[in-house]
């Protein structure tokens, strides 16, 4: 699986391949073999290059905070409106159709069913987090292809909630 993060304005790429308890990672082009153990939702032990690292992580919106020893890193999700992302989108002729949870929380309302047609601004799902309600709305005319969650369900940050198919996109490729 591949990931992209912005750290301090610089784009980094991580490709991970899991092989049992070990992983093979390619970070910005260099290969790292590591043994990893997820100790808790916030703690990951990484044995790599003959050293032991304990990383603490927490996800907040589009950001992952990672602390290793006394060093703090802020990993950000590259925005889709980044120049590169926008170019890619255009070239592929596709529109992001996955509506994801903005942060860990609870789904309090699911307003749509699979097959429903939605218009921009329609509320699809309501997620409650940090005592605030986040209304996840459709951004373009679409057909609801898949609903991944039900009311009352706990969700993690970025967990897919609803898949949308652009209304004028016709059948899937």
């Amino acid at each position, binding site marked *: *699986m591949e*990931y*992209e*993060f912005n*750290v301090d304005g610089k784009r*980094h790429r*991580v490709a*991970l*391949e*899991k092989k049992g308890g070990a*992983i093979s*990672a390619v*970070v910005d082009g*260099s290969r*790292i073999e*590591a043994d*990893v153990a*997820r100790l808790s939702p*916030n*703690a*990951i032990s*990484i044995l*790599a290059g003959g050293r032991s*690292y304990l*990383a*603490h*992580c*927490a*996800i*907040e919106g589009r950001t*992952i*905070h*990672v*602390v*290793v*020893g*006394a*060093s*703090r*890193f802020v*990993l950000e*999700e*590259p925005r*889709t409106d980044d120049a590169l*992302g926008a170019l*890619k*989108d255009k070239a592929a002729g*596709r529109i*992001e*159709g*996955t509506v*994801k949870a903005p942060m860990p929380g609870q789904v309090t309302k699911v307003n749509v069913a699979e097959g429903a047609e939605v218009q921009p601004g329609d509320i699809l799902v309501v997620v409650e987090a*940090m005592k605030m309600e986040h209304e996840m709305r459709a951004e373009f005319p679409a057909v609801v*292809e*898949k609903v991944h969650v039900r009311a009352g369900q706990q969700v*993690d940050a*970025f*967990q*897919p909630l609803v898949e949308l198919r652009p209304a004028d996109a016709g059948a*899937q490729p």
Partner: protein
Amino acid sequence: MFRKILVANRGEIALRVMRACREMGIATVAVYSAADRESRHVQAADEAVFLGPPAPLESYLNIEALIAAARKTGAEAVHPGYGFLAENPRFAARCEEAGITFIGPDARALALVGDKVASRKTAASIGVPIIPGMMAPGREMREFELAIREIGYPALVKASGGGGGKGMHVVRSARDLEEKIEAGRREARSAFGDDSVYLEKYLERPRHVEFQVLADRHGNAVHLFERECSIQRRHQKIVEETPSPAIGPELRARMGETAVAIIRATHYTNAGTVEFLLDEDGRYYFLEVNARIQVEHPITEMVVGVDLVRRQIAVAAGEPLPFRQEDLGQRGHAIECRIYAEDPEAGFLPRPGRILFAREPEGPGVRCDSGICSGATVTPYYDPILAKLIVHAEDREAARRRMAAALDGYTIIGIPTTVEFLREVIAHPEFAAGRTHTHFIEQHFAGWKPRPPDPALLEVALIAGALALPETAPPSGAAQRRALTPWQTVGRWAIGGEGR
């Protein structure tokens, strides 16, 4: 002994007091505002009473609501902690009137030591050195000008009803005397509702050295040695240690005797702190009495081996002190660092928010008096103290290294805190050499910025970040194919990658 105590506070100090109660077999009552329903002190108590809206005046400063809570739960005594109503003579008097024991000095002693000008007079009357300055607040400019002739520049404008550095201004020349006095008045009026100010000689590089005292209701009074609290930001302490690297046995004994003399002269009972400034020539001046358990009390507990909160409760219950001055001594060295929800980069501005993750250090000689946990919300309503990290070791250098290691093991994610800043204070060569004074942070840390993370750890951090993203059920084939960037496949990666 009491059977039930109401703790009229929140955060780490409420937890500290409740721990002592539990160990003494005393039931506890927590009080909480609407902002604190999920706070740890509510969970730690045997009972909890709701006070009111988050604003302190409607909750933790609401005397009648607290008295009603004590009556309703049958609490026989109230521990006020520090801050809020801890040094409020009206609250102490109101408790007494309601037949509830106030764990602290009585209202009369509180009123006497709470008035800075009055306590300066008391100290001077028994021959205790005080900082040269006015013995009463000034009204006319002429009075301030006269005082300046005696004490000279630089001088310090101070609020007579104040504390916490509010209303304090340094005056360096006749040109800005009037302006600084006006500024002091304005701040004092808004902070304490009283705009009376006075002038004192300003010491350039003093150390802040205070003595812990305990006095019972049977005429016994002892000191439990000093705490050096010179490392301050915004005139508020952030690192404290004991013993002070600046005083030897002879000066220590003299200052300790002075502290006890002041406590006796004010007919003070229970735990208190007598604060002094120590100048570069080893002369000390009485500053004020803090009539409460201090934030930094744990370092004394570690080095002297006395549980101060337990003693407070026992003294309030009428018990005599179980030791005399000659029974007390200092063993090893202790340091405390205060962990605040503040941004040191932005002038230590408080920064509320949600603690996404917290991990506190542990180990031999490491004590963490904390009021937080992962998932806790730091609200903007109260003092931004999160926790106190205290270490105890054989000597100062061992304690300093222990503190450095403990701070490295302290991780708080989600809000800015003072942890990283404190790591650098503890590592600073001037701190290591014991050369501390109250302008230490201004002098050595002006324009401080956090160090960039170690670039050698970036790869590990990126791998950890990728692994931290949630793992959920593999997606449908169509969705998988439409994935554009890995972020859109978040939660979908599974062993073997692609759709499994």
